[in-house]
């Protein structure tokens, strides 16, 4: 079918060479749909349009409307229907169009998706992946830039995963869809168009859920981060060299399960840590991470674990968002406050 080829070519990732995160995600969905007839993609505008971010581009043309389905515009209904589909043995992959549009589905998520395995003593696991574009930095107007991870990671029964690189976008999404547990798959939308040399991994080589990775080894302090803040942290680590600081950067990739071992090992090596994320500070992921690092590494710490995060305010309008989002300077300020000895 000509239209199919044309549609698929728009977003399809090349076999190797530079690809965007959007292309890698699209490829992961395609490969999952092709590998397992139980996989069904569903959401608002995911069909003919290919999703507002084009992550599902070409999938309906290639796999048909029954495998990649435009649903009515109702997030609780989408996720609730996915629960029933999973009960029947399917493996739904749900797209929530934007972070802040996912809230109507919250009751289904908390009351059913997260606890169905538990309440049925393991009889009804729900292999559902909920893809949510999240975070700011794209100039979105109100309700288009929330970092909602804290709501999800506070809900036992959910895995919460977020890629920060093109390769992880593919690998973690394949792993999420293959998981027998529900996975909240948070896609940093400002990294959708980030590019890297890449070729899709074999399913056996994809990143397992629950493993953090050291993106940059360092000797003097450790930045702990995930998703949209990884490039900012890498940039800060680069800039810190001028100050004589050798900063390490850990990319969590998965908030639940949380890879304490990798994080604690990195912090023990430096004795200083800063957690960096976009979402509000109070009661956020950083609070949990800082507490755990302190519990695990107290005798190795030279300074309190600090957090660099968004302010505790409703997400600001686009013309002001740069003041809210953690940037290189705010990260370096925090590093500067890590009780360095004078002279």
């Amino acid at each position: 079918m000509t239209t199919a080829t044309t549609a698929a070519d728009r977003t399809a990732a090349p076999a190797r060479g530079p690809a965007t995160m959007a292309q890698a995600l699209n490829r992961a969905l395609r490969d999952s749909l092709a590998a397992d007839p139980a996989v069904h993609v569903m959401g608002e505008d995911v069909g003919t349009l290919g999703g507002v971010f084009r992550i599902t581009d070409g999938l309906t043309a290639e796999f048909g409307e029954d495998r990649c389905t435009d649903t009515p515009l109702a997030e609780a209904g989408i996720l609730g229907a996915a629960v029933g589909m999973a009960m029947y043995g399917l493996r739904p992959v749900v797209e929530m169009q934007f972070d802040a549009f996912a809230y109507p589905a919250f009751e289904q998520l908390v009351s059913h998706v997260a606890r169905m395995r538990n309440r049925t003593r393991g009889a009804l696991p729900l292999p559902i992946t909920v893809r949510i574009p999240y975070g700011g930095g794209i100039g979105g107007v109100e309700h288009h830039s929330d970092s909602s991870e804290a709501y999800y990671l506070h809900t036992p029964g959910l895995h919460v995963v977020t890629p920060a690189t093109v390769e992880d976008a593919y690998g973690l999404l394949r792993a999420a869809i293959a998981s027998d547990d529900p996975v909240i798959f948070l896609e940093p939308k400002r990294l959708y168009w980030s590019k890297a040399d890449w070729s899709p991994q074999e399913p056996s080589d994809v990143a397992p859920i629950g493993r953090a990775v050291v993106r940059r080894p360092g000797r003097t302090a450790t930045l702990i981060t995930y998703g949209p803040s990884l490039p900012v942290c890498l940039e800060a680590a680069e800039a810190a060299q001028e100050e004589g600081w050798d900063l390490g950067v850990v990319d969590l990739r998965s908030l639940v399960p949380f890879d304490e071992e990798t994080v604690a090992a990195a912090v023990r090596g430096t004795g200083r840590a800063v957690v960096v994320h976009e979402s509000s500070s109070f009661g956020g992921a950083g609070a949990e991470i800082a507490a755990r690092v302190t519990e695990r590494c107290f005798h190795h710490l030279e300074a309190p674990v600090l957090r660099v995060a968004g302010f505790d305010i409703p997400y600001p309008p686009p013309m002001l968002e740069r003041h809210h989002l953690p940037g290189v300077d705010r990260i370096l300020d925090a590093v500067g406050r890590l009780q360095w000895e004078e002279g």
Partner: protein
Amino acid sequence: MTVLDTPAWRPRADAAPLLPDPEPYRLLGTPAAADLDPALLSRLYGQLVRGRRYNRQATALTRQGRLAVYPSSTGQEACEIAAALALRPHDWLFPSYRDTLAVIARGVDPVEALTLLRGDWHTGYDPREHRVAPLSTPLATQLPHAVGLAHAARLSGDPVAALALVGDGGTSEGDFHEALNFAAVWRAPVVFLVQNNGFAISVPLDKQTAAPTLAHKAVGYGMPGRLVDGNDVAAVHQVLTEALERAREGGGPTLVEAVTYRIDAHTNADDATRYREESEVAAWRAHDPVELLERELTGRGLLDDAGRQRAMDEAEAMAADLRERMHEDPPLDPMELFAHVYAEPTPQLREQAAQLRAELAAERQS
């Protein structure tokens, strides 16, 4: 030519055939009842008598401290029994918390059905075994599940239908709306049975809706609405059987409103005298689902005193067995709290499990 004459807009369906009949459909006591299968009526009767006894026994178990709470379906047995018996083995039932009677009538062990209300776990039965979803406490949230399951069955080419139960209060929830809309758009093989028992705990229906009847809500979604006397077990059974058959054959969903009454309070913890008159309850007692069927069976010579006694004896045996087994303390394993959170426990859960294990060991030593 106005914009409304362009192909951009046209009505999708004729609303008239979707409208419910103005009077609730009845069979018992009408000439049409003569065509009903005596074997089916006998089965329905046995189950109704058993169901009434079950409600009484479960309520007694709350007073004995053996159940944390029990929302009785006394007065609504016809809906519960008809729902369970209208299903075929491969169909699925999606109950709400007041529907343990439908759950046991479907074949689930009564003790397992009461696990939620006893409180030793949440769901006591394997939903796949009898194709009964977990009892759902958050109102109407199980309805989209029924739609999704029915949709999946249709995609798989299986002649399977889902029957979702909800109350009149549940029709106000957003999930009711979303489920009916998805069902109609997808032509999912699902039937929604609203048991309109008059109250959402204490709030009467006229504070819940301004719709002519709840069955009328179907029209807005493009599915047929049926109104049925919810105390006429033969009528409910027939309406549900037809709707399920239509669903399995690809005809799409149906909304059925069964008009009934909650004779008991909301639960054993509720005081219904605060919000309704005894005269209203008495009026509904005169339209009792068990007596309606008894009158029909007796009139047609299908039931005598011996038959009635036999049904009561069978119900009594069920109650005695339930009583005996519910008086045993359920086995509790605190370590099971960690067993079903994920396929594999997270490192943090392993730590917490070790903590509880140590606490249990310390308890045993003290």
